[in-house]
């Protein structure tokens, strides 16, 4: 290296270090450090905006360098259950979206309350750094005119697994029996000791004054599922989840609060455990007897329901002088978006095939479909309880749809013409930002589409937006996109898994018809399995990696995620194939079918031998409910004509392919990024200081807990790989494929081989989305597909024992992709027939059609006309005009009333039988933003109440 170059590198490293140090001080804001040196990672409104107020994890240092000081894995959140009919959406789920703002020292305050079923909820969090505890005050106000009873579960996940260093267990309670009852004021959880090895410190939750105080905890629940009715478990994986439930009765306008503390000790050894536990237990006892209330307003203190007057007064407060708890200040909750769509076409659970058929038959248009998805995104994906599956929505989505409709009108056809697709935001898009799920790349605008994106665009698909992902698609447990961590579509308190969590949730919640995701380890399989979707990690080179930001070059795979196997085939018909710019794809066109749908044969499994390796059907967490359900689903392989063949070490073989000797060298991460950088001069042109993989991994714009210490980044980037090294790496992947083929060719006790090998999907229930700390959010089972460059198709198989969707997987030989897709289709046929295939999420129900907001007046009895008069004002709140004449339909009109000025009776637009009126003055339609009023006249001889529901339809509909 020439001296000049050395100098340049040195200057760059120094500058980088200085920049990183400066940036760190500005951006590291979710940690609060206590006297024990514990870094409390609080899930506030800062990226990734989990915003539950719970503790993600506690560490011995910041960022990704600190060991974990306890086994906490998402603790301190609240689940709230309102006894209301109908039950509000997300009733009983983990509350979030408080806009929790850090004061820069030790407090987090709510900036926007959460509204659930008429209850306004806010919380404040305070970390007492000197005393090593955190305090939560959760406040609830009944905003309705009737009394409400609510149940609040405080708690979360205190460890992970059934045993070992990450597991936890209840070891003591205030009554000394380690059984949680209403007679306890605190509960202690600890980690198994390991001699002189430091393990996680003890955790004590102070739950309030014990019985006979009437405000005491009412139920100790299993924090993992059915918390309000399922009792606390004391062992196994579920023993790591606690929900301490209080029941509050709120009068109209009434306010009550719950106060909890969490006392933590430092990491312990066998020698230090007893004294540390004694210390934290004493602290907990002190807080239970004399709660620390500093910083609360008198009204807040007076609102506390779970500590008795004696203990509160002993804290130096004159409880008898309490002011009205209704004076507790709670920021207003944002108005919820009305669950309405301006599209007459319902896209809920529609497959690509159904959408295409409806467009081809003229039932609908791409514009109506796209509008429907956009409206669902606005209602379900954004706001306090939004799934956050999209990071960015295409501003020209409707224009793309209009172009697709025009193309169809001109005679164009195609599997994805006019179909809205979500794109994981590590694919380049020339018209949308590409961020890799990180603020590191915020605002980056590639000049060109990724190969697969370009194929979609050419096919006339509507590129609906960029799906959220795990930052850099790294670890596979949480899709912690900084613009909003993705939440599970089926169990909305749980993780969506990663890194393609946004893509999966977008499809599962019917926010897009299908999606592009990607996988290095589990990022297609995991999120798809959590969302009852189909996906394919294809043979290396089946789909192009051009224009996809890398994680582990040559192992990364960009693939499709869909609702059904036939939808997957439609996607593959467009995105699979040889890309001249990606040498790995060179053989693709020789191996793929002319039409992937041609392999969709319900007989595809007949006579097939499906390998089964018993050891892979074991959950590392020790649970069996999920794998039992997945094992039961194997019956549909058999029903479709396949034979299950035991293989692996149980019959003298191996459980994985024998890896060929690997003498290759070179850093694929660095090479992947350098190739990406070489192909994207616009990165530098747009001001991004990204010149190597180190610049990416050491960015101080990363989420605080993934951020590397700048001092660890003072290393020169790894050298580029030589062409010989690259060729060797590619050859090694081919050798692995060959080894896998040999393994499968000789599998089974008879060594007759197998056609494919079946694997379970997820092995356990998924954990809550507020956890982390490098711990798994689910029992994971990767097939050897990614490691060996061979295909795995993943497809739904119903539910597990707790109502969580499950998938199973089939692994095949290199370029067996089409065969695997066919087998999945056959399985799907039999499983769906039994109701055990793809299942639908219920958390994002159909939206009510309405381009409008309607306002009703009261009723006035007009003695001149002997009718009741009522005025209805209709405003077009959509961005599209409503075709005239606008029709107002009255459904379920009470029998005592007749609409005397009706235009007719609804005969076609179900529900039928009700009157409708053609709104005067709307013959030419109703422009966006315009409003019109119509007077209704009702005959009502008995003077009884007049009730009905309304629909507004465009004149293009025959009512």
């Amino acid at each position, binding site marked *: 290296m020439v001296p000049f170059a050395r100098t340049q590198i040195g200057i760059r490293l120094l500058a980088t270090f200085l920049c990183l140090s400066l940036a760190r001080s500005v951006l590291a804001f979710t940690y609060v450090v206590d006297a024990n040196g514990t870094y409390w990672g609080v899930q506030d409104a800062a990226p990734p905006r989990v915003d539950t107020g719970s503790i993600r994890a506690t560490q011995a240092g910041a960022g990704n360098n600190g060991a974990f000081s306890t086994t906490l894995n998402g603790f301190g959140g609240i689940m709230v259950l309102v006894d209301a009919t109908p039950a509000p959406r997300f009733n009983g789920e983990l509350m979030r979206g408080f806009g929790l703002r850090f004061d820069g020292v030790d407090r987090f305050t709510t900036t926007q309350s959460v509204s659930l079923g008429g209850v306004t909820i806010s919380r404040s969090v305070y970390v007492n750094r000197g005393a090593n505890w955190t305090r939560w005050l959760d406040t609830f106000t009944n905003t309705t005119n009737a009394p409400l009873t609510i149940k609040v579960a405080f708690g979360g996940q205190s460890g992970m697994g059934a045993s070992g260093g990450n597991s936890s267990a209840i070891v003591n309670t205030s009554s000394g029996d380690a059984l949680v009852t209403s007679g306890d004021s605190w509960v202690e959880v600890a980690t198994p000791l390991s001699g002189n090895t430091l393990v996680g410190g003890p955790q004590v939750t102070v739950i309030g004054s014990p019985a006979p105080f009437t405000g005491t905890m009412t139920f100790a629940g299993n924090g993992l599922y059915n918390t309000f009715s399922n009792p606390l478990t004391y062992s196994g994986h579920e023993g790591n989840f606690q929900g301490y439930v209080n029941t509050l009765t709120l009068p*109209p306008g009434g306010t009550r609060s719950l106060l909890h503390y969490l006392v933590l000790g430092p990491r312990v050894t066998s020698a230090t455990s007893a004294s540390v536990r004694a210390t934290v237990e004493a602290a907990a006892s002190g807080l239970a007897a004399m709660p620390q209330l500093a910083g609360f307003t008198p009204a807040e203190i007076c609102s506390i329901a779970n500590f008795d007057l004696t203990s509160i007064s002993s804290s130096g407060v004159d409880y008898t002088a309490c002011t009205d708890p209704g004076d507790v200040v709670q920021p207003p909750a944002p108005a919820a978006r009305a669950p309405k769509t301006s599209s007459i076409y319902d896209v809920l659970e529609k497959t690509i095939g159904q959408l295409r058929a409806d467009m081809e038959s003229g039932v609908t248009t791409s514009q109506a479909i796209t509008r429907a998805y956009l409206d669902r995104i606005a209602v379900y994906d954004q706001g306090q309880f939004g799934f956050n599956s999209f990071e960015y929505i295409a501003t020209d989505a409707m224009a793309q749809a209009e172009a697709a409709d025009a193309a169809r009108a001109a005679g164009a056809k195609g599997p994805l013409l006019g179909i809205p697709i979500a794109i994981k935001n590590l694919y380049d898009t020339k018209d949308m930002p590409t961020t890799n799920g990180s603020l590191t790349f915020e605002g980056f605008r590639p000049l060109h589409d990724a190969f697969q994106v370009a194929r979609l665009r050419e096919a006339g698909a509507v590129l609906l937006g960029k799906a959220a992902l795990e930052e850099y698609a790294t670890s596979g447990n949480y899709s912690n996109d900084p613009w909003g961590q993705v939440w599970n579509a089926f169990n909305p308190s749980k993780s969506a898994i990663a890194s393609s969590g946004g893509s999966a949730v977008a499809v599962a919640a019917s926010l897009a018809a299908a999606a592009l995701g990607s996988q290095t380890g589990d990022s297609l399989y995991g999120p798809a399995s959590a969302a009852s979707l189909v996906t394919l990690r294809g043979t290396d080179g089946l789909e192009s990696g051009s224009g996809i930001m890398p994680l582990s070059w040559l192992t990364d795979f960009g693939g499709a995620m869909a609702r059904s196997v036939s939808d997957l085939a439609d996607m593959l018909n467009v995105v699979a194939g040889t890309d001249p710019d990606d040498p790995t794809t060179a053989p693709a066109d020789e191996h793929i079918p002319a039409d992937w749908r041609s392999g969709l044969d319900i007989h595809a499994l007949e006579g097939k031998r499906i390998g089964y390796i018993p050891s892979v059907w074991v959950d590392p967490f020790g649970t069996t409910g999920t794998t039992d359900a997945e094992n039961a689903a194997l019956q549909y392989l058999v029903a479709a004509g396949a034979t299950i063949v035991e293989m692996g070490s149980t019959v003298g073989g191996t459980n994985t392919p024998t890896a060929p000797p690997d003498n290759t060298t070179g850093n694929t991460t660095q090479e992947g990024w350098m190739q990406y950088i070489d192909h994207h001069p616009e990165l530098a042109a747009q001001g991004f200081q990204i010149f190597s993989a180190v610049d990416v991994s050491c960015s101080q714009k990363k989420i605080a807990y993934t951020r590397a210490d700048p001092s660890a980044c003072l290393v020169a980037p790894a050298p580029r790989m030589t062409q010989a090294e690259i060729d060797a790496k590619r050859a090694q992947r081919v050798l692995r494929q060959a080894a896998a083929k040999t393994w499968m060719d000789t599998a089974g006790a008879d060594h007759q081989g197998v056609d494919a090998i079946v694997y379970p999907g997820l092995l356990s229930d998924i954990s809550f989305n507020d956890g982390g700390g490098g711990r798994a959010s689910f029992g994971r089972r990767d097939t050897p597909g990614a490691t060996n460059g061979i295909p795995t198709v993943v497809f739904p198989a119903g539910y597990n024992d707790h109502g969580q969707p499950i998938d199973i997987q089939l692994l095949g030989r290199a370029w067996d992709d089409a065969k695997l897709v066919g087998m999945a289709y056959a399985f799907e046929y039999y499983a769906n027939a039994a109701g055990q295939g793809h299942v639908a999420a219920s958390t994002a129900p159909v939206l009510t059609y309405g381009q409008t907001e309607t306002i*009703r*007046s*009261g009723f*006035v*009895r007009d003695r*001149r006309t002997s009718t009741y008069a009522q005025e209805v004002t209709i405003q077009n709140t959509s961005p599209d005009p409503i075709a005239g004449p606008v029709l107002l339909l009255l459904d379920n009109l009470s029998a005592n009333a007749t609409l005397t000025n009706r235009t007719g009776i609804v005969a076609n637009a179900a529900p039928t039988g009700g009157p409708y009126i053609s709104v005067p003055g709307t013959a030419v339609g109703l422009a966006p933003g315009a409003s019109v009023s119509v007077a209704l006249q009702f005959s009502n001889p008995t*003077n009884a*109440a007049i009730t009905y529901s309304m629909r507004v339809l465009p004149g293009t509909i025959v009512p």
Partner: protein
Amino acid sequence: MRATFVTACLTGLLILTAHSSAASTLEFKVVVNTTPLIGNPAGPFALDFQLNGAGPNTVAIGGFDFGGGRPLGTAFAFGGATGNLAAGIVLNDTSAFFTELFQQFIPGTSLSFSVSMTTNVTPTPDAFAFSILDDNLFTIPTTGLGDALVLVNITSSALTLSNVQTFRGLNAGAGRNYSNVIAQALPVPEPATLVLVATGVIGAVARRRRPFFLQAERRWMRARRSRSFGSDSPSSANAPRSGDQESL
């Protein structure tokens, strides 16, 4: 003076009976030019007050000033309506969807009265309406919904004067020109709430329960047939005297 006292009692009752969550009441004064009604062949006229909906809401109307005119005959009430033009009126829609009270009057140059109402919000808003009826018990035509002269839709718990809709009459032809019958809503001074509550308590203690007007409309029709309008007293022996309702 007596009417004022009774109105205060009614208002106090209104506050006492208001739903516990009702944070506020709406109070305003209505003024109507009634000169066009003087000597109008469509008379005698009646004032008509309605409160319709699921409730619970209560409207107290009192402080009538007839501008030289006066109440006439008996009030006819339906649903949760009580009172009369002399003593004041209370409309409560807790028990009935349709609540109405009307009573004839001799118009003067103007009419004014005060209104105090609760503002409990329901999905389909309760509506308070004031209209004028002609000799056929037909509402005189106006620019308002259902021929109302004053309309309040209870769409918010924090209604203000701006939410009070006022209208004007229309020319119905045949000598029935009401186009100069114009309603206005004006603010009233903020009441001394505690005083009103105390007065309401007194009123409540002094209250004497009276039979409900179950046959009110039938009596009205009998009275019409007997052509008794224009006299101060209804001919029907069953019709209560207006003074009987004052203590409500």
